[in-house]
């Protein structure tokens, strides 16, 4: 189990926003292995927004481009709800995609399992720290 400072993904409700089925399935497997609960895996922006609305996840893994559609609206929705997320994208530079993504945590495709996990934990830790402080 990947654990960062005592934080684990176990029991964390995760929303996967990914249009490539194979990638999404792979990601599900990785998260399930870690004990996370995959709330949903959605391939479109509208599905994602609906999923967030239906049950806000603890953490979101998010592709930047869903079959040509930008996921910026999702990011905005997540930011609005202070839901931590990690962007998984083939784009090297987020800023080139959209300025509001500057500084967003990111893992580049094709992703490395450990990299993805540690980034998820890092985001989760930060988020929790913020929650404590607030």
């Amino acid at each position, binding site marked *: 189990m990947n654990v960062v400072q005592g934080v684990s993904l176990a029991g964390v409700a995760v929303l996967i926003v990914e*249009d*490539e*089925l*194979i*990638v*999404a*399935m*792979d*990601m599900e*497997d990785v998260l399930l292995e870690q004990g996370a609960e995959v709330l949903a*895996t959605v*391939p479109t922006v509208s599905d994602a927004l609906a999923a967030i609305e239906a049950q806000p996840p603890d953490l979101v893994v998010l592709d930047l*481009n869903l*079959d040509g559609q930008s996921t910026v609206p999702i990011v905005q929705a997540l930011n609005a709800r202070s839901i931590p997320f990690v962007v*998984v*994208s*083939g*784009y*090297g530079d987020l800023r*080139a995609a959209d300025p509001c993504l500057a500084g967003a945590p990111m893992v*580049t*495709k*094709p*992703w490395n399992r450990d990299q993805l996990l540690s980034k998820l934990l890092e985001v989760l830790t930060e988020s929790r720290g913020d929650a404590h402080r607030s």
Partner: protein
Amino acid sequence: MQTPVCGIGASAGGIGALQALFRDLPDDLGLAYVVIVHLAPDHPSALAEILAMASKMPVAPVTDSLTLQPNCIYVIAPESELVISGNSIQASAFNEARGRRTPIDRFFHSISSARGDGIAVILTGAGSDGTSGVKAIKEAGGVVLVQDPAEAEFASMPRNAIATGCADLVASIAGLAVQIAEVARSKEAVRSLDMDAAANDLRRIVGFLHARTGHDFASYKRPTVRRRVLRRMQVRRMTSLSAYAEYLKETPEEADDLFRDMLISVTHFFRDPEAFETLTTKAIAPIFDDVGADGIRAWVAGCATGEEAYSLAILLKEEAERRKLKVPIQIFATDLDEGALGMAREGRYPNSIQAEMSAERLQRFFLADGSHYRFCEEIRDMVLFATHSVLKDPPFLRLDLISCRNLLIYLERGLQEKLYALFHYALLPQRYLFLGSAETADVANQMFAAVDRESRLYCTKPRPAQPMPILAQRYSAPDVPAPPARPAAKTPPGTAPAVLHGLALEEIAPASILVDERSQIVHLSPSAGRYLRHSGGTFSDRLDQVVCPELRIDLGYALGEALLKAVPTLTPAVSLEIEGARRRIALNVVPIRDGHRSQPHALVMFLDGGPDTLPESAEAATADGRDRDEQVRRLQAELVMVRDSLSSSRNDHEHAAQDLRVANEELQSINEEYRSTSEELETSKEELQSMNEELQTVNSELKVKLESISTAHNDLRNLTAATEIGTLFLDGELRIRMFTPSVAELFNIVDGDVGRPLADFTNRLIRQGIEEELRQVLGDHVPLEIELKDQRGRCFMMRVRPYRTLDDRIEGVVVTFVDISTWRLTESRLELTEHRYQTLFDSLDQGFCVIEMLFDAEDRPTDYRFLEVNPAFQRQTGLSDVIGKTMHELQPGIEDYWFETYGRIARTHVAERFEAAAAKLDHFYEVYAFPLGSPGDNQVGVLFHDIRERKEAEREREMLTHELSHRVKNTLAVVQGLANQTSRDIGSVDEFRASFIGRLEALGHAHTLLLDSQWQSADLVKLIDGTLKAYDSGKREAIKVSGSSVRLTPKQGLGLALILHELASNAVKYGALSVPEGRLEILLEPRDADGQAMVRLHWRESGGPPVTPPERKGFGTRLIERASTYELRGRANLSFEPEGLRAEIDFPFEQEPQ
């Protein structure tokens, strides 16, 4: 302040002397040196260049008018003379004939009149130019320096200058240089003297001069005296008057020199006009009143440069014309000064004489001669100039008028008296003597009566004929012997016996007369008068002429004995009638010598032999008788007769003597005329000499010229050969004068044809009428240019110009032929190149412009102006009609970096290449900008083209690359996931590989299909065919696909490819396709569900091994189910029927627009 002038005159041999002089002269004396030489008129002179080499001082030839600068050398130019006026020097043309030019004199005169002082230097030369000039210089107070004739190459010019007596210093060239320097310094000192303070010293000097020479100049005008003294100071190089006074005291010669300087004569026409007025009315008029056949004779003694004599001539001429009388008028004008006489003879005076007489007189008697006036022949012939000393030489005689002005004042009184006597002797009775304003004839009032005392006009008193006064002894002439001591008139009675004896002797002593060696009565005793008896005619004081006639013969004899032989004589007694009684008188003539006096005198004593008591009758009655008386009477009668004849012969003799005297006088004057002719010959000789001298100069200069001409000739020859310009010189008749080899060929002429008319020759030019064109140029002098060809096809430029001589006359034509064949060819090539360039410029797709950068005061580039643009410019920029406008005018708001960049290029002159946007023009340009012209022009050439489209394509490509990278990464992520998922189910590597590669191939196939449609859509049937192809080898008939195809989205295509792959691989491994008899049917069934176009894919296997549902969901199953929803947005339903697997997959599709 005026620059002091040093005039240097030189002639033959002068160039060497001048070089030597200037080499020695310091260059800081502050003098302006003016060099006058005799130059040949028609010959350029190199004197200035020669002197420039000898001296550090600047040398300037004077051809116009120059301001004099200190330490400069001015050189006379040929055919001109120089004059000074103010502080400038002017050149003007000569007015005299060549032989008569005296530029040195002329210049020196101008120095003296313009400056009043200066330094005159006479160097080597033949002739006498400068002679009168140095006098003028000296008279004006300048200093005269002369080269030692012994050293001079030609001695006559220095010698003549020295002969005037005006030379202050005579030295060698080296000495002259030193002297000039010293004089210049002393002149500087003199200039700064305080004249008021020096007045005392001046008085001392004048006083000393009086003591030394006996002449008191105290009454002379002070400025004159001061000027002369200052001049001597310069000569003696004294710097103060007191020093000079000391010098004068210690050096007796200096007193004489100063005295001489004081006497330098000045005269001008009609000096004292009132006096001349009086002369006309009171002397000339009366002379004309009783003029005889002899005409009028006048004598001007001391005529100097002749003004006096000519003035008189004018007056006489005028009077003669007034009276319409034609009488011979002869004026003798004499002087000692040869130089002055030379000038006088010339009768030529500077224009300044205008001030001295009326315009009418100038008009009437003079001929204008440039800067001079020359007397007309009429006047000139009236005056005869001769060298003559009033004191030494016999005078002219039978004169009507003597003018002797300002001569007597210099003479001692005694000598003056003798001169008056001489003048009296020379003048006819009742004729006139005209003196200077400072002179008077009052001392000779027994001879002259004043006609007008104010004007110093005197008239001879009639008086007895006298022998000509002899003045030869001059100062040594003895005083007239004092008369014998005369006893007191009365002696008181009762005196001593000695006195008584004296008285008695006086009483009874015979009457006596003392005569001098010329028998003139010197003294008479009281009673001697009775023996004198004047006869008629002129009065005489000669004893032998006035004694009683009876005694004259005896006395003459006796006086001869006494005076010549110093023998006393006692003559026999002669009977005389004295005081009414006849007395017998004998003469005792005793010579008297008085010791040192060499001149004999004689005492004539009349011894009274008592009354002649013996009457003739009584005589007859004497002891000798009648015969004797008769004899005596006869003898007496004979004697009377002899006496008469003697007396008559004596008269004859006297007349003869008189005639001889007149003849002598005439001979004298003829002699004078011969002399003057000789003078004139002398003058001519000098002229010839000066001409000769000029010729020498010309000759030497010609020699140099000849050398340079021969060099020039060579140069010319080489030049014509080198330039290959055919040149043809033709004269006014178009005869060949000269030609160059290339012309020879064109005109078929050879060297021997010079002088023949050009028309005689055929030429090889393809042109008619060349002769006419040449004549036209000869006529109108307008140069002509014609292009023509010769028979060999060569092109020529023929230029015809008039042949213009240096003095601007047309003496023919010059024809030149320049072969321009090559030039023509080059020109046509050039035209072609230019045309090409223009075409390039016009057709160039790139914009091109030439701009001129504009900078503000801080040198910042602010704007630029278009100078030139090509047609593409408008296409590239959209701007039109830009020439002459600036960028700001055409389009405000252009980015600053355009100006900065162009400004930098204009300043640094370094070309730059750059790309930049011009937002206002909506363009993006690639630009190559380069400097044009020189840096100051600020011109920049700009070559540019719009690259906006390229830029956009680049951007698009960049985006695409970016996108591609994204896609590849996505695809890789998919592959990664596929590998992960595949690996989960499968243990062996071989199995994994087969399974993984199969899935990859399915994806790859879908990609291929999508690529065919540009990733727009995929045909469902094609997808199925393609996906199953990998598994249907040999089983083609086992698979049946039916139904209508639909178009899938790319995502659906990819998803369906994976699903079909999973289904097919399962069928091949485990299902219907694993056995030969197995069958697979795929049915496509489109249907409509609530308005959404849907399709159902039926997968039906049959004939295969019996199917059992799998124990757990493998990846394949999961993938089919998930992909159906996730990717196809549909649903899959798998049912494991025993006869074979069945799958129903529903999904929506986009209907193709109709």
